[in-house]
């Protein structure tokens, strides 16, 4: 796994150096966008809406559109300066019960491993949290965004869930068409609860799989096997091939002879090159 962040958990006087790894991965099959008429892949070009020219990244700034067509601009340094994450710490503020947090708050999970000589402090925190059965609520900045996070124990690993700030979670009152008072038929309710009981099972994630991805992968394999394959037009081909021919021609024009195979090994030197010995000596002098 690749380290995505390095820092330390701090609570009270305890300081636990950790490395962070992404715990989950998206296995969606990604597709390129293809120009239907020729089969070439679509590339994204950043174009200025005003000048209609392609803009390179050094000429691009970030701007906040505070009203239609009006922006305030920011340099990267200005935005970086806002980040409070000078210390690179996961600062634990409180310890709470996991049940107190509604799953709606959970955003993304990371694993934390001890870094450098942090093994002892890590084990201490892990064991103390395991025994108390509580989870830590912490503040953390990853890249430029600061988040709330929950630190909890999974087996012998500390894990961190980033969680939404309360004002990022929309209120249920905004959902239209929710029933106000319950008007359910007693008999139907009995049947429904019976059905729930019948379908009750321990949660076993291994038995669920992504049917769509499986079917898509089969379709991809079938298309490749049936040679129903579209090639990107080789526009580049002519470029690099033509370019190579032009290069060879121009080298020939200035009289660089193509070295014959034997000449490369028997010590004969092609006219355009210098003998190895002299060159090497020169290299030595520049080094020491």
């Amino acid at each position, binding site marked *: 796994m690749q380290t995505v962040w390095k820092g330390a958990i701090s609570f009270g006087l305890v300081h636990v150096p950790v490395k962070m790894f992404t715990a989950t991965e998206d296995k969606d099959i990604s597709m390129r966008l293809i120009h239907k008429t020729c089969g070439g892949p679509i590339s994204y070009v950043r174009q200025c809406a005003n000048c209609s020219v392609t803009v390179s990244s050094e000429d691009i700034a970030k701007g906040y559109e505070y009203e239609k067509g009006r922006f305030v601009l920011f340099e990267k340094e200005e935005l970086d300066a806002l980040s409070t994450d000078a210390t690179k710490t996961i600062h634990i503020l409180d310890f709470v019960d996991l049940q107190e947090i509604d799953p709606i708050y959970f955003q993304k999970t990371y694993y934390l491993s001890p870094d450098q000589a942090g093994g002892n402090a890590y084990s201490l925190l892990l064991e103390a949290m395991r025994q108390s059965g509580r989870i830590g609520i912490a503040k953390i900045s990853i890249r430029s965004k600061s988040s709330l996070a929950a630190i909890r124990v999974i087996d012998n690993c500390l894990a961190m869930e980033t969680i939404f700030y309360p004002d990022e979670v929309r209120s249920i009152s905004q959902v239209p068409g929710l029933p106000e008072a319950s008007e359910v038929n007693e008999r139907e309710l009995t049947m429904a609860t019976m059905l729930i009981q019948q379908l009750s099972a321990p949660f076993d994630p291994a038995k669920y799989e992504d049917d769509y991805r499986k079917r898509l992968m089969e379709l991809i394999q079938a298309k490749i096997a049936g040679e129903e394959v579209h090639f990107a037009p*080789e526009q*580049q*081909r002519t470029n*690099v*091939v033509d*370019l*190579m021919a*032009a*290069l*060879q021609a*121009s*080298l020939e024009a200035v009289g*660089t*002879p*193509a*070295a014959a*195979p*034997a*000449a*490369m*090994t028997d*010590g004969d*030197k*092609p006219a*355009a*090159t*210098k*003998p*190895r010995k*002299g*060159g*090497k000596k*020169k*290299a030595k002098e*520049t*080094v020491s």
Partner: protein
Amino acid sequence: MAVKTKGTIVVAGSEMTISNPGKLLWPEMEITKLAFLEKLIELSPYLINYCARRYLTVIRYPNGIHGKSFYQKNCPDPIPGFVRTAEQNGIRYVVLDSLPTLVWLGNLACLEYHASCDRIGEPDKPTEWVLDIDPSLEEEPRIMEAAWLAGELLRSLGISAVPKTSGATGVQIIVPLQPDLTFDELRAVGRFVGDYLSRTHPKLFTIERMKRNRGDLIYFDYLQHYQGKTLSAPYTPRARAAASVSTPLTWEEVRADARPTAFHLLNIGERLRRHGDLLERAPVQNLRPILEFIRKK
């Protein structure tokens, strides 16, 4: 060198203990540690010549080629007085610049010697350009054909190069250089050449970086030659059944489809006595005109 007592030898005035001289390091070739050290001494002038001014990475096989192995960049302790080291990015590398150092490493079961592309204290002044032709198949019958085609293309650009077996399955093409191009500039030329080869020989070459997407194509690797990366040093033994040695070849040998496993510890001495070091004699090249041509387009 004189064998004084069993287990102790004197190399160029430095005494050192040889542990387990009878241990089989390459069992298929029946090469013991003592035989390995003898071969290493035979190879030493050539190996040292190439490695002396580079950061060295070794691969150690304490129980022979079929046992556990590990890469070692940091100089192992205790460091004998005759060993020089050089630091880079917090790592204290062994400088392989003397026979005692080589024998010391050999005794530590360092079977493979990989040298940094950059030289000590010269992060961006490569003295050669290396193209790594790396087959996806363990046994690639077309490897020499691929090397030949790459060599022919370089030749058509007036570039004289030396092919060498990596000692494993691949071939590397080495172009000695005037140290006036940067690694990035060499990558630009490499990309151009690789692009051309993969387009003109799409069933042979690929420049795809992800191994799983290469199929059985031969990877034309122009990226490995870079500051901070290593390549198998010319004349390093490899921890493979054939005890193969990374060996510079003639283009005739490439055209005659030489097998990489044909060059190994037991016959490399004879070859060196007959041909000398093909790499040492290779003429220095100037790639700047080609780079400038590519840049203009």
